[in-house]
Every structure is written in C-alpha cells, then in structure tokens.
C-alpha cells in the first residue's frame, strides 16, 4: 500500500517533468535562424554585472546588435572552468567573431583560435604578441596610462591642498592592464606636483569589496594618503566607499563611478564599449586585421576621464587638459608599466 503510493508520487512528478520539457523543447529559439554576422562576447569571472569593465563591453555588443544588425551572443562566465564550455558554446552557436572580455581568458582563447583557424577571435586588454601572434586574432588594447595620467594630475593637486602629498592606489591583481593605469597615475602626479608620493597595494581580488576597503583604510590611516585610485573592479568600490567614509577622496576606474560614493574626485575611463563595437563593426565589414592590435587612446576617444567633482577648481581642470593636449600631440608619453620585472624600460 505504502510503496504503491511512492511509485504514484514519483510517477506523477516524472510525468509532469516530461510534459514540461517536451512542451518547451518544441519551441525553438528564434535567434539561431536570424541571418547576418554573428558575434559572441565571453565575460570573465566577474560576469556582466561588474562596475563597467565587462558591463560596458556588453553595451558595445548590444550597440552592434541594434546598429549593425549583428546577431549577438553574450556568454557569462562565473569561474575559470566556465571558459572552455563557453567558447565551445560560442563555436557551436556559429559565431564568426568571438571576443574575450579580458586578459584572464587569454589561454582559452589561444587554444580555440588554434583549433578553429576559420573563426575570428579578439581579446580585450591583451596584445596579440602576448598571446602568441595568431593570424586569426586581434588584440583590443587601451592606453590606460593616459587616463591614469589625467586623474593623477587631479589627485596630486587635491593631496597638496589637503596638506599631505601622498596619494594611494588599491589595485586588484598585479597584471599589466592594472599596472598601466597605476604607472600613468604615478608618473603624472609626480610631474604635476613635485614630491608627490604614490603608495600602491594589491588586493589579489576583483570581487570582494572588504579587501579593497581594508587597503584604503591602511593607506589613508597608515600612510596618510589623501586620494585613493581604485584599479580593482568591484572590489575597488570598497576602497571608494572607505575613502569617502574617512573624508578623503576616491577615483573610479573603467566606468564612470561618480555615484558609487559621496566623495568621488573623478574616474579614469576605459571605454571598452567603444573597443568591442569597433572590433565587431570592422570584422562585419570585412576589415578584420588578424595578428594586429587595435589601440584605443585619448586621441581616438578610447580612454578618458569621467564626471569631475564640483569641488575641483577650474585651474586644475585646465592643467589636466594641458596634459591631455600634450599626450594627444605625442609630446608627453606616460609609461605603461611600473618598475620591476617585465617592464621594458626604467619607467
């Protein structure tokens, strides 16, 4: 008696599940049938809901979808073991161009680019030479040291006004795309206000806000930093909030982070949406330059500065703009890496 009822329960459940699956299985996804260029964008572990780095690339993809009629496949990763299945999915979906949203996907992209020479690949923040000079791959690179330089000017002026010529950085990982921001920031801060000291700490994380908040606290209370530049994605928001709480200033990164905390001086922008959009537009028009890097800088509006606090005097902005003009003209070249192993010259 009892065992019969079990069978009934399990049977009904299985039947319901089977019906649901069968009903849904007949409804095919319409996207697959649409003609036109197919482009996929694979996020890194931060997903598309980070502060801008991945999110803006998704914006670029969506813009390509609406303006160019491209079929877009945004694919979210949540850990590094998702990279392989996500590339497999992009290939399976028939993507003609697969964009990796960051440096972290480099190894996986290389494997797939080697395996599928007829598919085009691109990667944000990783030069072709670093991946291995593949002919079906483009590097989408950003001269972030230029944006870092501009915010460094404002940071140095603010620190000077506040009485201690010390500015801080909360970095994520010590990787080239992070260090280029810091190198420009440090270089121009010391140029704008002689004797400005830059203190740098890395959290080893792009997610956990508490880690970056601890770094900001340490730099502000222990080393008298007056401004904290966050280069750590979502983690760095913790640093911005902590700086505001301690009545110091924060500088956002990648996207415009003016609204993240009360006291945001400005943000160093990396317009990853522009990069992704231009890459797709180029590839869709048959102008894919395999084996080369696309460089986005101040000159072509690929990097820049976000909204500036009204507490910043006009004269500082003028000074910052003079740096901008010099960089665009090629008279000023902020270094792209910090001193140490892996940096070509004595930066």
């Amino acid at each position, binding site marked *: 008696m009892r065992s019969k009822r079990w069978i009934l329960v399990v049977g009904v459940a299985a039947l319901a599940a089977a019906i649901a699956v069968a009903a849904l299985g007949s409804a095919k996804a319409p996207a697959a049938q649409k003609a036109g260029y197919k482009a996929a964008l694979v996020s890194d572990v931060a997903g598309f809901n980070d502060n801008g780095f991945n999110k803006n690339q998704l914006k670029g993809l969506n813009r390509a979808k609406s303006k160019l009629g491209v079929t877009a496949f945004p*694919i979210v990763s949540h850990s590094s073991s998702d990279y392989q*299945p996500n590339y497999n*999915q992009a290939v399976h979906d028939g993507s003609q161009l697969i964009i990796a949203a960051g440096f*972290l996907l480099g*190894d996986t992209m290389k494997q797939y680019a080697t395996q599928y020479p007829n598919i085009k690949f691109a990667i944000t923040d990783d030069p072709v030479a670093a991946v291995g000079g593949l002919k079906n791959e483009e590097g989408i690179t950003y001269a972030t040291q230029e944006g870092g330089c501009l915010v460094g000017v404002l940071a140095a002026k603010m620190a000077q006004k506040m009485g201690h010529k010390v500015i801080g950085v909360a970095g994520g990982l010590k990787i080239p795309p992070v*260090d280029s921001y810091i190198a420009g920031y440090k270089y121009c801060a010391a140029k704008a206000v002689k004797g400005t000291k830059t203190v740098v700490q890395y959290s*080893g994380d792009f997610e956990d806000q508490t880690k970056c908040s601890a770094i900001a606290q340490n730099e502000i209370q222990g080393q008298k930093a007056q401004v904290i530049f966050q280069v750590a994605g979502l983690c760095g928001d913790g640093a911005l909030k902590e700086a505001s709480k301690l009545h110091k200033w924060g500088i956002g990164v990648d996207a415009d982070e003016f609204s993240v905390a009360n006291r945001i001086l400005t943000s160093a922008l990396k317009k990853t949406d522009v990069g992704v959009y231009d890459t797709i537009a180029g590839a869709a028009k048959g102008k894919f330059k395999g084996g080369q890097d696309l460089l986005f800088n101040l000159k072509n509006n690929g990097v820049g500065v976000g909204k500036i606090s009204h507490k910043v005097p006009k004269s500082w902005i003028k000074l910052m703009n003079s740096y901008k003009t010099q960089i665009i003209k090629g008279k000023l070249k902020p270094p792209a890496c910090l001193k140490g192993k892996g940096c070509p010259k004595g930066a």
Partner: protein
Amino acid sequence: MSDPGPSPSPEQSAEAGTLAARLALKQRAGGIVVPVVTVLFAFLMSGIIIAATQHSVRTALVVFKEIFQGAGLNWVFHPTTSLLDISAYNLSQTLLQTTPLILTGLAVAFAFRCGMFNIGGNGQYLVGLIVANWLGVDLAGLNPFLHILLCISAGTLAASAYAGIAGILKATVGAHEVISTIMLNWIAYWTASWLIGAGGPLQVSNNPTNPVSNQVSSGARLPDFWGVQGFQGLHVGLFVALAAVVVFWALLNRTTLGYEVRAVGFNPDAAAYGGISVKKNYFRAMAISGAFAGLAGTLDMLGGAQNYQIGQLDIPFIQVGFIGIAVALLGRNTAIGTLLGAVLFGALSYGSFHGLGSSAVIDPTLANNLTYIIQGLIVLFIGADVLILYVWNSRKKLRRPPGKTARRAEAAAS
C-alpha cells in the same frame, strides 16, 4: 536507505536516545521519498521566485529548460558520444563537475557519521590541488603512471594530515571541529594565494606578472576518455571518484574501523563505555574525511578542470567543499545517497551557470546573480527537509489510528 549489515548497527541500539538520534531514525524512515520531495519542492519554490521576479510563468519554465539543457541532460533523448553534439558536450562537463562533488560529499558524510561537522572540505581540497600542482610541475619527466600515482597519493595524504589537525585538536583539547576547520580553510586559502601569487614559489615561471601556477607537466595529466585532450574533457578521475564511493561504503559498513566510527558518531559516551577510543576515532574520521576532499583536489588539478593550473583569482571561486555539505545532507550521509546528491548538484551547478549564462533567457547582467539565488533556494529547501518530514509524518498520524505509527517507522528503518 539504511545500511544493511550482519551486525546490529549501533544506531538501532539507541533508538530512544537524543533528539538527534530520533531525527536520524525519522530521516531513515523517510527513505528516498523525502529527498525526492525535497528536491521537487525546492525547484517549485525557486520557480515561483523566478516567475515573480521575471513577471512570467513561462520564463520560469524556460529557465528550468535551460538549466536542464545546459547540464546536457537532454542527452538522454538522443544519446551520442560525439562531442560535436552540444548536449553530449554539456553532459561531459556536468560529470566533470560532479567528480569532485562526489568526493567532497563523501568527505563531509564520513565526518558526519562520526558525529563531526567538517566544514573544512574547501581547505582540504585546496591542499590536494596545490600539492598535486607542485609535484605535477616539479617532477616532470617521471614515468607517467608513477607520476600520477605519486601526485594523487601525496595530495591525498597531505589533505588527510591537514584535516587530521582538526581531529587532533578535538581529541586532545576539545576544540570544536567547526571552528578549527573554518580556520584551516582560511590558512589554506591564503597560503595557496601566496604560493601562486606574484613572486610566490609556485608562480608561473615565464610571466612574472601573472599570478597563476605553472601547468602540470603533460606526463602527470589524467587521460580524458570523453572529450578532446587538453580541452577540459571528461577525465578518468570520474572512475576514481566512483571507486571512492564503494570504498566509503565498505569502510563504514564492513570494517571494525567503520563500526567504531559510527558508534562514536551515534553516542560517544556509549561507545566509550563499550571500549571504543573516542579520541582515536575523532582523529581517524577527520583524517579519512580530509583524504576524500584532498583526492578531489588532486583529480581536478591533474584532470584539467582549471586548465592544469590554478590562478589567484580562481581561489575565491572554489566552493566544492561547501557544496559537499549540501550533497552529504541530501544524500543522508550514505554512499549511494551522496553519489546521487553529487550528480544533482553537479548538474545544477554547471547547468544553471552555463545554461543561463549562454542563453540570454534572463538579462545577461543578472544571469550570475539569479543563478546564485536559484542554487541558494534549492540548498535552503534541501536543508528544510526536516520540515517536510514533519509534515509527512503528521499527515500520516492524522490518517491512521495512533499506535501503528511507531511500528511502521521501525519497519521502514530496517
């Protein structure tokens, strides 16, 4: 789902004991129905949440379809071994994620059977991972068979010793294993971060700015039996995990050691009265528990789940030790239950992240967050199985005259 055995099991001898004892009896009495109902209930609840947040019942159904297909479970409708078929590929990835969950589930279950709560599965897994990477890189050129064997056994032993620390602390000074294993998790976490971080001893040698480990040498890699070698295919570690399920069952139900462990787990005082050394068994159970979790780490490293290496950024995403707790709970701390629980969680984990991450059924910016919510709800409701048991039992009490219930529960338990 009780364990049949020739000797009277220690659980049965103390039926009228503590609350935990009566609960354990009821859980066994619930048999397979309660876990099944729990899972269905959990899916139903998360379906309601999705329907409410997405303002569409249809979306909720599509979400479940995507999870189902994302896990490759639609493979059963058209089985093929060709990995050009996306469902076959996805199924191989689901099984790949199931492999470590079987082992971390067994790890938690083994400690549970000795009355201990091993929350340190994640730390023990990391120890296995790191040791396997270290030996896998450093001993390049060794005979592949020996190399793999050495990496696996060294990683497993190291994790076993690591978990043993918590066992010794409990046995000697009475430090609670929940606290000590959590602390050991953080020690493993930060030690691993340092080892593979910039300038660390295990950091990749050709790029000083990239905080990842070296890849294990090709000789130490486990062969893939389903998939393209090097492309995160399904490796033979799955069979090792399945063998571990048999070992777990035999160890617990067919050896003196297992009998003692279960006796201590059920009632340490009674076990001590019966001449069983409680302290010794705390250590032994913890060390064996750690060995299972460490084995999971070695298999993942040598099997290429993280591309034969581990990055500093990967460490915060390692959750298998914690998911193992849910696996063991759902599996009632039995061998076969843990295996089934691991398959469910492997499919849920891979299917939901991959299915929802690649289908754009829900806004891609929300995909990861919503996936965590669905997984969280399912874990929550699986944890609420006691409630379902209560409802299940009180329903029967209403229907049947009193007096019969106890006898029936007893019958179901045997």
